[in-house]
Structure formats: C-alpha cells, structure tokens
C-alpha cells in the first residue's frame, strides 16, 4: 500500500451505517476516510477507538482496526493503545454525551496528558442513541426532552474553552456540512504531535431537526491557529460557538512513549537477593 496512493474507499467498510438519513455523522466518516487517504496511511496501521452513541458506531464503518468500547471510555482505551503501541496512528471518535458528560473527566485529563492521538467529537447537543435527551452542550432552555421538560437549566459546556483550560495542544472546530474544511482539520490533527481535539458540529436530524439551520450560523473565522494560549483564550471569549477553523496549536512534548529495554527480565529479581 505504501507505494500506491490510497483512496478514501480503501478505508470504508461494507457495513451499512445505522445512522438516520441526513445525519451529520456520515460526513464525518467521509472526512476521516478522505483525510487518512490524503495522508496515505495504511489502514492496518490506524486504529479508531470509540465509546457508545450513534457517533461512536463509526469505527465499524471503516476498514481500520477499531475498538467500540463502553460509554465514556474511548479516550482511556485510545491512550492505552497509543502508549503501548506508539507506531500506530490512533484516533478516537464519539459524541458530546460520550465525551463531555460521562467521559468528561477523561477528556480533561487526556487534554492535560497530551498523548499523541486525535479526538474527534461529533457534537449534536443531544443524546441521539438514547432517543433525544439533553447533553452537556444543550442550551439551558431546550425543552425537547421528556427527561428535562423545563429544559436542562444548566449553562452549556464549552468544549473549546475546556480543552484549552485543560491543556490541549491542538484545538479546532469544524462543521460536518463543510467536508473540505473538516478533512483539512482531520489531517492537521493527525499530523499534530500530541493530543489534538477536533470539535465537529454534526447535526442530529432526528432529535434536533432545527440543527439543519447550523449551515447558516457557521462561519470560518479561526483562520490561522494561535500558538499562544493567551491569544486563543482572548479569541474564545468572543466565540459564538459556530466559528470554525483551527483555533490553537501549541508545542508541548507528547506524553512518554514506551522506553527501550535496558535489562533482561531474568535479572530483575536480583534486587531481592539478600
């Protein structure tokens, strides 16, 4: 495969997605396969790790290695895999509920830890898989769920700000309806050395049909990535949540890889000899 030029189809499996027609996640799948093809990464050397949710079904629709883990735990699984197998390209994908609600702690600590992997969150401000409850990014006054009939009543989670505060070294936002920009970000994120976070606005046409209107709201104003956290912060304070582009790219060294052996296992016991 190394010599030949890879095509996006090489990365797509023949399993039919369970997604609703029109779901934003189709574009994300397409952008990932296109991005990997552009980077010409052999499918056998790439792994996709996800949690549980509509979006977390994505790995099965690829020809890559993958782990469809449990709800909220994609990032630890992905981190363990990358730490144990630094030779692989590791991506983690999932939803806003998976990543920011039940998986919120791992998100924060993965940003801090800076393991060299890419995390793509398909944010639809809803729990699609469980049929339409509020997620952390849902507006406080959204009354569309029977579970929170008066609205969740909680200020929405700010993914980019949280990533920046937590120490992520690559932060971007894309819209599933702009596949070229999304593909560009996937490529840049995969190439980034360290933890990269791509926040994708990916509409749920079934439980949040109004999100079809996102197309009108999105604007590509993060033109150049900031390299200074301060600047990125200042920029974010003006953010309306619909600005796309790469916000920030820092330069911290990625987290420790597997070291080379310097001693044989047989000698390890020597330390116990009296």
């Amino acid at each position, binding site marked *: 495969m190394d010599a030949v030029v890879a095509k996006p189809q090489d990365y797509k499996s023949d399993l039919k997605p369970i997604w609703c027609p029109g779901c934003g996640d189709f574009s994300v799948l397409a952008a990932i396969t296109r991005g990997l093809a552009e980077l010409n990464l052999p499918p056998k050397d790439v792994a996709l790790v996800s949690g549980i949710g509509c979006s977390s079904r994505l790995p099965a629709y690829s020809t890559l290695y993958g782990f469809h883990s449990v709800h909220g735990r994609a990032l*630890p699984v992905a981190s*363990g895999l990358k730490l*144990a197998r630094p030779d692989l390209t590791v991506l983690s994908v999932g939803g806003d509920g998976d990543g920011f609600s039940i998986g919120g702690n791992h998100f924060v600590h993965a940003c801090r830890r800076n393991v060299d992997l890419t995390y793509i969150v398909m944010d639809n401000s809803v729990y699609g898989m469980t049929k339409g409850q509020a997620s952390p990014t849902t507006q406080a006054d959204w009354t569309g769920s029977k579970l929170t009939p008066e609205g969740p009543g909680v200020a929405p989670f700010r993914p980019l700000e949280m990533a920046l505060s937590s120490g992520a070294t690559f932060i971007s936002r894309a819209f599933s309806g702009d596949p070229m920009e999304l593909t560009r970000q996937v490529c840049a994120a995969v190439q980034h050395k360290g933890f990269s976070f791509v926040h994708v606005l990916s509409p749920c046409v079934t439980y949040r049909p109004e999100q079809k209107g996102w197309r009108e709201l999105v604007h590509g104003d993060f033109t150049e990535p900031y390299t200074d956290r301060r600047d990125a912060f200042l920029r974010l304070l003006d953010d309306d949540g619909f600005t796309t582009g790469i916000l920030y790219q820092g330069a911290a060294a990625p987290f420790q890889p597997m070291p080379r052996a310097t001693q044989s*296992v047989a000698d*390890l016991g020597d330390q*116990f000899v009296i």
Partner: protein
Amino acid sequence: MALSSVSIAMTGSGGAGVMTAGQILLDAAAKAGYYGLMGRTLGPQIRGGESAALLRLSTEPVQSPDDGFDILVAFDWGNIERFREELPMNPGGLIIADPHAGDVPALMLDAERRIEYVPFHAMSKDIHGGRVNMVALGLIAELVGLDHDCLVERVTTQLSGKGQTALDSSRAGLDAGAEAVVGVKGVPRLDRPKPRTGDRWSITGNDAAGLGAIQGGVRFCAAYPITPATDILEWLAPNLPKVGGTLVQCEDELASVNMILGGSYGGVPSVTATSGPGLALMTESIGLAVASETPVVIIDVQRGGPSTGIPTKSEQVDLNIAVNGLHGDAPHVVTAPLSIGDCLFTTQWSVHLAEAMQTAVIVLSDQTVGQSRTIIDKPAEIAFIGRRKVAETVPGERYLRYALTADGVSPMSLPGTDGGAYIAEGLEHDETGRPSTQGAHHTEQLAKRQRKITDFDYGDHWALVDGDPDAEVAVLTWGSTAEVAREAVNRARARGVKARLVAVRLIDPVPADRLRYALAGVSRTVVVEQNHGGQYLRHLRAHMDLPGRVEAFHRPGPLGLRPGEILAHILSQ
C-alpha cells in the same frame, strides 16, 4: 528452651523506628540462615501514629504467623487499645517494656503474662545520637539467639550512606541492647539455622506480584493509587522501563482499566492493581474485556470492607464481586495467591491465563500477603509466559475475529497486521465482530466465551493439596489463609488427626472435578476463610456439592486467622 520458630512483636509510636528495626531483624536473620516473615500494622494517623512490626523467625521456611507472639517489645504504649487484639500473645509470652513508657497497661495483662522492664529510652540517651530502636534490636537479637555480627553487618549495610557517626551510634545501641540481655529471664531461643545453599530473597507479596506480572510478559500498566495495592505500582513504575515497558498513573480506576484494555488490544500484555473500591469502579469495563475478548489482569489487593471499610487491614472479602460482579453472563477467571511468595507464581500464571484465554483475570491478593515481607529461597524459573493465539490473516480474505473454534479461543490479530483489521466489540456480535441482536449469534458467542474458560486445562496449579492420603478431615481454603491452614493441618496431623490441606488458587471457574478428587474420602470438609459472609463456601455450594459434612470456619478481620483457632476447630468436632 530452643524453638524452631520465635514470634516477635515490636510496637511504638511513629518515628520510634519500629518498622526499620523489624526489617533489619528479618534481613539479619535471613543472612544468618533463618527464614521468616514480617507483617505490619498501623494506626489511622498518617504520621506519628502507633505502629507494630510483627515478626516470626524460623529455622524452616515459614509464611504463616504463629498463634501469638513469644516476645512483645513495647517502645511505648500509645493507643495500644486500638490494636491490642492484633497482638495476641503465646502462653508464657514475654513482654519487654520500657519503664519510661509507664506501667504495662492492664489490657495487656493476663495470668500467663511475664514482664521484664528494660530502660531502652534511658539507655539510648546514654549514647551520642542513640536511638531506642537500635537498643531494642540489639536486645531482641541476642535474646532469640541471632548472631550479633550478622546484625551489625546488616545495620551497616542498611545505614551505609548515613555517615560514620550514625553507624557508630547505631552500633553502640545494638551493643548496649545485647548486653542488657543478662537481666532478662525466661527467654525463648531459636534453634541454630540449618545449613543451606543458594540465594535467598527478602520480598513482599506486592513486590512479588509486580515481578510475576513482568515475568508473565506484562509491559504496560495503568493504575490509580489505593492502599494496600499502591506498592505493586510503586515497584512496577521503576522496573517496567528497565524491560521496555511503562506505567501510567491515571485520573481514576475507570481510566486505568480502560487504558490496559487499549494496551492489550495493541498486543501488549497489560495489568492494573487496585483494591475493593477501585475494583468496583472497574467492573463495567472488565465486562467489556470479557465481551470483546481482550486479555487483562486486575490485581485486587483486598482490604477490610465494605465501602471504604478498613483500608489498612486485611480481609478476604472481594470474592463475591470478583466472581459475580460483572453485569450480564460474563465468564472470566479469578485466582488467588496462596502466600506472600506465591504472589509471584500466581500473578505470572494469571497473565498466562488471561493471554491464553483472551479474557479478564482478577487476582485476589490481600493486605496480609501483599504488605508482609518474607524470606524465601530464590524461586525457580516459572515457565508460564503470556502467549496469545495470534491470527494468521490473509489480506483480502475476511478475518473472523470471533470465530467459533472448538476450544472457544479465537486467534487474535494485532493492529499493524495486514488483513487482520477488526473492531473489538462490546455489543453482541457475530463471528466477524459485527453487531448482531440475533439469538443464534448471541447464544453461540455466549457459549464460546463460556467454553473457553470452562474447558481450559488449568493443570496442577489450581490448588495446593497436601497431607494424608487417607485423611478424614480436609481443610479447604483459598488465597492468603493457605499457609495458616497448612500449619493447622500439620499440627493436627502431629496430634494424630488424619488431615489434608486443599488450598485453592483457582477460585473461578470452580474446578469441581479436581476438587471432588482432592476431597475424596474425607468425612469432614472445613472451609476456612477470613470474612464475615463465608463467601467462598457459598461460591462452592453454588457450583458443586461438597463431600462429607461441611463446616464453615470464617470470621472477619482485622486480626488474621491463626493456626491455633483452626486447629481448635478441627479438634473440637
């Protein structure tokens, strides 16, 4: 009065150096050719609280405590009521107290007790930089008949780097203590050690577990600190890198167990260590290991429960959760080390089992074996190394990750292998790994996951069976109580009772046929364990009928079970 084993407790407030003294005594005895072990008990205070070093020295290999202590040396009596019950005395046992610490408290006194006062404190004051613990050490070693030079040598090694002054004052302390012996009467002395060749190790169960993991092939560990498992991690952290592995400290146990799932999916045998509360947090993802058939080893160093319980004390109380704590029908493996030293073998074997069956193995160690130190002969090499059945994939041909094989184990491809890509799946799936809700797929995958565990050949390692071929009584136990039970069985046999020890390492699946064979012929089966609920007995009952009359013998911690109480039970019926 010369004995094959002498048990010594030293107690004192934090800073008195009780633990240092204990460790030196144990190592010096080892150097002199003895065996022994040392446990420890600590108060709730983080620093400066009371503590006790609990030793047993012996001419023969020993990994069980005795019923009580022959000598109790009290540097002081601070908060003694909190752990009085952890300091049982043998009949005629000798208390050596410092008049400086006041009278021996009433709760330490009973009819058979003998008391000697030695002014450790005053003696140490007479020495420039003198410390109470060195004086006591000198005294104890001399009392029990341990060669003074050996002791001095050990202290010298231990304190090398602390400077000549420290050495000189320690030595002076040891000498002063040794000389004080003349005033002390009725002293139990050890027999001379038997001549032995070969290296000996001084090792804790937790260190041994770490070494066993690495020997089994583990190169990745992710974990979150928790008493009393942290020592395993603290041993692994500097040692894994030496052999090309790594350890990550995680944000919590949810991260730990999932990180090792990731590492193992990548083909690197992986382990985590925790205690009850952490294990509870891990069960959802251990279920994922079962369903996705990803090998992982989880060492649970049990502590007093339930909930936060008694973090620094030992109990065998997590059998229930280890065996049955996963949701759904989730067959996996549970093992338990049978002694401090056996933490090495059992952990290594567990890595082998996890890798061979591509499943989760939970190792039930506990605070007693984990944090006690023992002297053992250098262990022989153990053959078990984690080896997965790796798939031979053919690019272009559909690889069946969850193929229905005869033994239930499906060859696994490792990322990077051409033609081997698959999704490790926690949803029910067909042979390819694709999600399926069909009953046929569900049933065949359930059966396969059960079969690979049930039909596996665990060999002879499932238990330690020892004793009379024509035994009438079997003492059936598991994990860390094995050595105590062994001593009880040996004492019973010495009294003419035909008895057998069956100490089980393989907790789940229940090796029912082997157990029936091992128990064949007995008319009484005494099931011994250290918990309130009799968890192992219930587990056995759930899976098999035990032969003969079954007698439950169990009680909770913190005091570890004693050979004497088991013996009494054997004799009482």
